[in-house]
């Protein structure tokens, strides 16, 4: 008995530590799947509580990882002769625990927790209170964590697919809803298509690198290929094709123009908490992946793709903002707006310097909380008999629920990038990075796009604040929703009013 415990402990201190949070999540997910059978119809809330506990446990695991990481980094800094410290590597260097993972995993966990809080009442209203929902949420989170921590193409791909498959199912979770079905099907087909393209790219990369799947080896070998004159150019087209297909696959996941078209439809059709989750976590995880691939694998060829990235960014900004201007469905509107946010984050990649990368992390951090908050407000609008995703459903929200309206204002300001909110700080870093890397024109473009963005965000605000309420009832807000809203608003404001800790966090994620 003792030896079993010992071996477990050994495992946890060795390789196991690197996937500790994922394991915990998995455990709880399986627990939910089993436990669900034991629960009566009216006791299903326990699933949610179990899921939250899972997130909490994963959080503790993450904390342990963080402790260990800090200790190791301290050790490495005392012994500089042993080379740069890449993070805690595990499983034959297919996975790494480093700042990037820790921060992103924390973001995923926070997002998951908030989404769980937001889901409880929503599922009650939809009469779909089932354990599988929460299990799938946790599975998705596991997938995202692997996306962030994987440094092997296979791990990354499988993580991505785990997340994606969970999302396909979650999107279609309201099986009676036509919109939900349709969204799920579209998401599945397009997502499958894009994953296949991504896989194609991975396979080419594997070939181009000379048979490696670890991204660091790939990077090393690509660099060598590019610098040795002998084998020059031979694999160039392979690399290019690989880059293009990988980029296409990832652009799809982050919903960048022109691979974005699934987003509005899926956002509209999916259950709103899932919409929030997709728009927030899926996007962040894909950015984590993008960040790793672009900085590590394709870091050397940055000058060649920077204009491409800039083009995609500007296209995303333009398209997202334009389409959002006249949109009347809140979820679609936020979908378009999220497309434009992708543009901003990609600009950070265009800059590509330290500030830019910090900007990306900060922006995503801010984006998670402000977007979750905005969706939370929409979720509140979902009441018995009201779908609540049209802009007119907000009418007179201020009279009906002032607290929600005030928070909505905060989220909208943050989304638009008005200080002192998190959104502004995110944009601040992006702009700063663009200026530093001498992209003033891009910066001006990006900055001016705040103006139309503000216009449509304030359309929402106007409906909530200025328009008279119709006969709409006062929305019931559950305690869980209230907590979620408050947390989102708190972070959104805190990261704007006192950005220092968050800046440090972003710095931590990027590393020295």
């Amino acid at each position: 008995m003792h030896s079993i415990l010992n071996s477990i402990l050994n495992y946890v201190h060795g390789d196991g530590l690197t996937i500790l949070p994922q394991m915990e999540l998995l455990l709880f997910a399986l627990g939910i799947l089993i436990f669900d059978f034991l629960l009566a119809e009216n006791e299903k809330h326990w699933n949610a509580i179990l899921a939250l506990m899972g997130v909490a446990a994963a959080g503790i695991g993450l904390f342990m990882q963080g402790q260990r990481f800090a200790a190791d980094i301290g050790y490495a800094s005392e012994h500089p002769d042993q080379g740069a410290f890449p993070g805690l590597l595990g499983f034959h260097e297919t996975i790494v625990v480093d700042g990037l993972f820790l921060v992103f995993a924390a973001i995923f966990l926070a997002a998951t927790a908030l989404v769980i809080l937001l889901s409880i009442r929503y599922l009650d209203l939809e009469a779909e209170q089932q354990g599988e929902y929460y299990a799938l949420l946790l599975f998705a989170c596991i997938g995202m964590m692997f996306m962030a921590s994987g440094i092997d193409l296979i791990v990354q791909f499988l993580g991505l697919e785990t997340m994606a498959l969970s999302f396909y199912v979650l999107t279609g979770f309201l099986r009676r809803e036509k919109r939900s079905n349709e969204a799920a099907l579209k998401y599945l087909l397009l997502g499958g298509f894009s994953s296949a393209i991504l896989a194609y790219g991975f396979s080419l990369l594997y070939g181009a690198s000379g048979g490696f799947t670890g991204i660091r080896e790939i990077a090393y070998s690509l660099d060598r290929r590019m610098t040795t004159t002998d084998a020059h150019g031979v694999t160039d087209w392979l690399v290019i094709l690989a880059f293009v297909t990988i980029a296409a696959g990832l652009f799809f996941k982050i919903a960048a123009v022109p691979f974005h078209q699934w987003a509005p439809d899926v956002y509209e059709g999916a259950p709103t908490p899932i919409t929030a989750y997709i728009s927030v976590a899926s996007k962040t995880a894909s950015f984590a992946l993008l960040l790793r691939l672009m900085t590590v694998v394709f870091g050397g060829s940055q000058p060649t793709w920077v204009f491409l990235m800039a083009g995609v960014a500007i296209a995303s900004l333009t398209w997202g903002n334009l389409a959002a201007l006249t949109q009347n469905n809140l979820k679609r509107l936020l979908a378009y707006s999220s497309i434009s946010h992708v543009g901003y984050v990609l600009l950070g990649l265009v800059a590509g310097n330290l500030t830019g990368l910090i900007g990306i992390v900060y922006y995503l951090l801010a984006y998670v909380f402000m977007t979750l908050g905005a969706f939370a407000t929409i979720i509140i609008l979902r009441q018995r008999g009201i779908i609540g995703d049209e802009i007119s459903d907000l009418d007179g929200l201020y009279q009906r629920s002032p607290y929600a309206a005030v928070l909505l204002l905060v989220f909208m300001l943050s989304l638009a990038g008005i200080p002192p909110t998190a959104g502004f700080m995110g944009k601040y870093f992006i702009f700063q990075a663009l200026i530093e890397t001498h992209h003033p024109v891009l910066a001006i473009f990006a900055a001016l796009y705040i103006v139309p963005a503000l216009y449509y965000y304030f359309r929402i605000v106007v409906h909530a604040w200025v328009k008279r309420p119709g006969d709409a009832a006062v929305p019931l807000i559950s305690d869980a929703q209230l907590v979620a809203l408050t947390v989102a608003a708190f972070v959104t404001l805190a990261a704007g009013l006192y950005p220092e800790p968050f800046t440090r966090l972003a710095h931590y994620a990027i590393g020295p």
Partner: protein
Amino acid sequence: MPFLSNHLLSVVLFTPLVGAALLCFVPRALSEYQRLIGNLFGVLGFLVSIPLVRHFSSGSGDFAFKESADWIPSIGAHYALGIDGISLLLVMLTTLLGMLAIFSSWSSIQLRTKEYYILLLLLQTGMLGVFMSLDFFLFYVFWEVMLVPMYFLIGVWGSERRLYAAIKFFLYTLAGSVIMLLAILALYFNATKLTGVQTFDIPSLLASAQFFPDALKGWLFWGFFFAFAIKVPMFPFHTWLPDAHTEAPTAGSVILAGVLLKMGTYGFLRFSLPILPHDLYMRGKIIHIVVVLSLISIIYGAVVCLMQKDMKRLIAYSSVSHMGFCTLGIFALTPHGLSGSVLQQINHGISTGALFLIVGMLYERRHTRLISEFGGLATPMPNFAAIYLIITLSSLGMPLLNGFIGEFTILQGAFEVNHAWAAWATLGIVLGAAYLLWLYQRVVFGNVTHEVNKTLPDLNAREYAVLVPLVIIAFWIGIYPKPFFAVIGKPVERIIQQVNPEFYHNVSPIGEGHSASPVVGAAARVDAAKASVTVVEGR
């Protein structure tokens, strides 16, 4: 309390915010209490700012009441406050107009009073922050923050086309400020590159800016320019203003015209001037463009006023004209121009604020702002007519009232640099008299043309309380502006030293570089000659 006296600016800055926070907890039904607390904090906001005047010494021209605390050390942003003479005046103007604006809303705002007062107080904190910040980051935050309450003030409590006006105001201003943000970032980046120190500290950034290449400074100037030009507003960026002023509730218009517009000129003074290129040709071109735009604003605003049917719109356009004087003065780059400009900013706040209050009073009585709806008000409302007259005169630059001092000094400053500038601007004064008097005549003189107007009540005590302080200040500045000039003088001198140091070295353009003293000596000789004549006569 030493803490308070060491953090005087913070106290002034956050008093309205505290009021706003307090108001949040007042139940919505108790609108009387909301009103009371709102007004209380309006007055309090003004009272706590009075010690600033008492303890301010105009001697050094440096920033006083400095406070600084780390805010975002990783990017070098601080919570840094401080004021010099220029900002002192603007801060006082803000607290005063803020108080009066809140007070003026006593009876006119019946809807959502709580939110109204909260927003007004928030707005005041935002505006004060802009004038007090010594940190670019902080400055920008306040600059933007203040848009939100203003948006709601216009959008919720405005008149018919309020939403259009509100969003137009917001978007217009935002477009300028995001460009400014980029300019700030570029300034910050280049300064960091130059000095190796990451800081948003305004004085040190501007000091490093002196060493930038001229081309960069030119770009930075234009980056800042749009934000300020839109805020001022300068032709052709002015079209948000008539809409916003017209649709806003009275207090909103007062604050918009009285304080918000000053942010633009303040920005020009504080930020745009120090980053002017040193190269005389480049600088000359920039100044030429800005001055010509100012002149167009002066004349254009005045001409457009003549055609207005709506009182508030007329006054709004008159703001364009008056603010044109301010920018003209600033870009004359002489002590006279700058001092006059600062003073004129205060004057414009007083006069135009009062004009908007007056229109608001009429609106409260008649619920229309069309000039044609009035006429002959001198008969039912003689006291109103008298105060209105004083304010009109102050606005059109009648000597002994505030407007004259500012305009004269600006024109004098402009004249020193270029006679034609002053000549064109003088045309604006002539037109100013035309539209303001015409407005006054159509509203106040003549027979009472509408039956309803015959029974309009004259000013009540509250309205007197709002207007009389402004009238008193108008006379004060008009008759004894010396203290104001004293407060402005040093900072202006500092700015000129920094921007236009040649000013203090130049020899006179006529003659072979005589200094001033021989002339005076000669004058003394003339006197002596006259005296001798006297002596001869005496015999």
